[in-house]
């Protein structure tokens, strides 16, 4: 297949060999699962159970609320202990509403929806509803509700479903293992998704550092003429949606548009497998494959983990992570630091990394020497050095003018910076701050509108009163005049 170059990008130390040859193993069932009602982008789910309820595996615990949301299901059978606020698996360390499920070890299934017998004959709507009801979200880490993304075909003319098996983040091998061990499920899920989208072609893109995965998927895709496999070059961030689209099709997604606008929808391979499970067997999303790796982890593994498992149990299963300097959820480039070991694995947790200082190569920032590496390696054509210097001086508008909001936070600039300047941290700050200021401004405008409306109303009332008074006075004087005339 003809591929197209993408600009910039880096070649970090991948260190995938720590887990790439480790087959996925199941985690022994934890005593309790902690299921946040928000494990996805959009509105949090609203709980449909109460403390003390007994639930069975696959039963609905929280219903999706609103257009962009996703439900939460019980990963195993047990009793609801509480629905309370607990620390979220998020760098803020803020609390989030969480359902605590005490497991009973029986792993008893609830009544599941019937499999869709012939998904390719079923209407797109039916597939989307099933995917939505199964709580499937983008499992590459973005956690955008998949059903919403599968509805893009209704407004866009789509040509290609691009299945993202690039897995360009270092360390992570969960997608690699899924492709090797469940190639048929992945390809089937992809075909179902393409059907729902109305996209005639499926291309499964895999970085060439995963030859076994390419082989397995190629074999599984053999019978289907419209499914092909593309080995893409090993270049971070190849797995970024827009960059992968460009590498495969040569189409550059315009700023503030979706890849769907250029006829492509990108889904992750693990998502495809989840869709396969939901459509063919009626099983909602209850677990996911997590790569537990990093130099500090005694025994790195790929693990099929029930959602809601505390990270501590996962690490304990891997022999612990003594001497870890950083605890990261996801890959080392775009992953998020975790605030505590007690936070749970959620739908978007692709990896748990315990990293040593030697691996992170952290160092105190030094003055910028303007080497320009960040400019050379930025896959988005930005000038990180300049943006960071604007942001340092709190000139957020100037930074926005030269594109800080076009930054995808891939981390290439921070990775390459010889002065160890936390460039991406600056951009994350700026993006968040700009959004916050924007919210403040909207709030201020709203307040002003309300105040104006309020004043206008008061003015109207006063006016009405004045008029009434004038009328009364006129009437009165008329009366007096009439009286006088009479007299």
């Amino acid at each position, binding site marked *: 297949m003809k591929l197209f170059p993408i600009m910039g990008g880096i070649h970090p130390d991948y260190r995938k060999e720590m887990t790439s040859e480790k087959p996925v193993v199941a985690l022994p069932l934890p005593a309790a699962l902690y299921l946040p009602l*928000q494990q996805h982008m959009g509105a949090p789910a609203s709980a449909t159970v109460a403390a003390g309820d007994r639930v069975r595996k696959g039963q609905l615990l929280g219903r999706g609320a609103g257009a962009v949301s996703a439900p939460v299901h019980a990963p195993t059978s047990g009793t609801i202990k509480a629905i309370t606020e607990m620390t*979220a698996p*998020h*760098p*803020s360390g*803020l609390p*989030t509403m969480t359902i605590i499920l005490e497991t009973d070890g029986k792993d008893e299934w609830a009544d599941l929806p019937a499999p869709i017998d012939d998904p390719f004959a079923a209407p797109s709507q039916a597939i989307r509803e099933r995917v939505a009801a199964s709580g499937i979200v983008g499992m590459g880490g973005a956690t955008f509700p998949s059903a919403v993304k599968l509805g893009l075909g209704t407004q866009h003319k789509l040509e290609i479903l691009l299945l993202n098996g690039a897995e360009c983040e270092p360390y992570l091998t969960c997608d690699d293992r899924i492709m090797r061990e469940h190639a048929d499920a992945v390809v089937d899920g992809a075909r179902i998704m393409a059907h729902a989208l109305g996209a005639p072609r499926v291309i499964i893109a895999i970085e060439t550092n995963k030859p076994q995965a390419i082989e397995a998927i190629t074999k599984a895709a053999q019978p289907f003429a419209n499914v092909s496999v593309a080995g893409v070059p090993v270049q971070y961030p190849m797995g970024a949606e827009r960059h992968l689209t460009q590498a495969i099709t040569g189409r550059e997604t315009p700023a503030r548009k979706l890849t769907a606008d250029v006829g492509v929808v990108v889904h992750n391979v693990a998502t495809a497998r989840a869709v396969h499970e939901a459509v063919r067997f009626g099983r909602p999303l209850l677990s996911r494959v997590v790569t537990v790796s990093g130099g500090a982890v005694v025994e790195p593994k790929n693990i099929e983990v029930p959602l809601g498992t505390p990270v501590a149990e996962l690490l304990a299963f891997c022999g612990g992570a003594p001497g870890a300097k950083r605890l990261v959820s996801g890959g080392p480039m775009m992953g998020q630091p975790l605030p505590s070991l007690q936070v749970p694995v959620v739908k978007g947790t692709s990896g748990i990394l315990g990293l040593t200082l030697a691996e992170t190569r952290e160092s105190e*920032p030094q003055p910028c020497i303007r080497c320009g590496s960040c400019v050379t390696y930025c896959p988005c054509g930005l000038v990180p050095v300049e943006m960071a210097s604007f*942001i*340092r001086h*709190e000139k957020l508008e100037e930074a926005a003018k030269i594109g800080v909001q076009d930054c995808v936070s891939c981390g290439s600039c921070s990775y390459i910076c010889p002065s160890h300047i*936390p460039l991406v*941290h*600056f951009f*994350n*700050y700026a*993006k*968040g*701050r700009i*959004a*916050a*200021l924007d*919210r*403040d*401004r909207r*709030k*201020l405008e*709203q*307040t*002003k509108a*309300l*105040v*104006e*409306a*309020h*004043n206008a*109303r008061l003015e109207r009332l006063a006016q009405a009163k004045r008029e009434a008074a004038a009328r009364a006075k006129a009437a009165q004087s008329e009366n007096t005049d009439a009286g006088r005339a009479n007299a």
Partner: protein
Amino acid sequence: MLIDVGSLAVMGVTLGAVLGTAAKLLAVPTNPLEDELQALLPGSQCGQCGFVGCSQYAAALAKGNTPITLCAPGGKGTIEALAKKLGVHADTDGHEDKGPEVAFVNEELCIGCLRCIGECGADAIVGAPKQLHTVIADACHACGKCFKICPTEAIEMRPIRPTIAAWHWNKPGERATH
């Protein structure tokens, strides 16, 4: 020599005259800065800044004889906008930002007197006589006027809890604010 001095003197006088006339002719009658500043303020006339209303505060700001950090409902965003407009440094460190707040009516204490409703400039409180009043959190901008007027102290100003959706990273090297 004389010609040099003379020509320079003539030039100086002419240019000076031109500039002087231009300054007179093109002078802007009112102070536009005041209006611009007022546009940046919430406009709820809450008076927390110590001035009677937003326009008085804007006027004082335009004269430059008052700190830019007095507008409590506006918060940091307003301070920064004012700083930018006035070209001064936004020294928010000295400003005690108590964080965003929202008014809340305590059901037990509310007697349904309607006073807060009359006071609210943004129509953010709903209720009827002798009925429990409620704050529409979305519309409330925490001016605190209802809090001050409530006869039974049924209204409290509660801090708005930070949410994960609104959270963002601090500037590198700065302490957390949340």
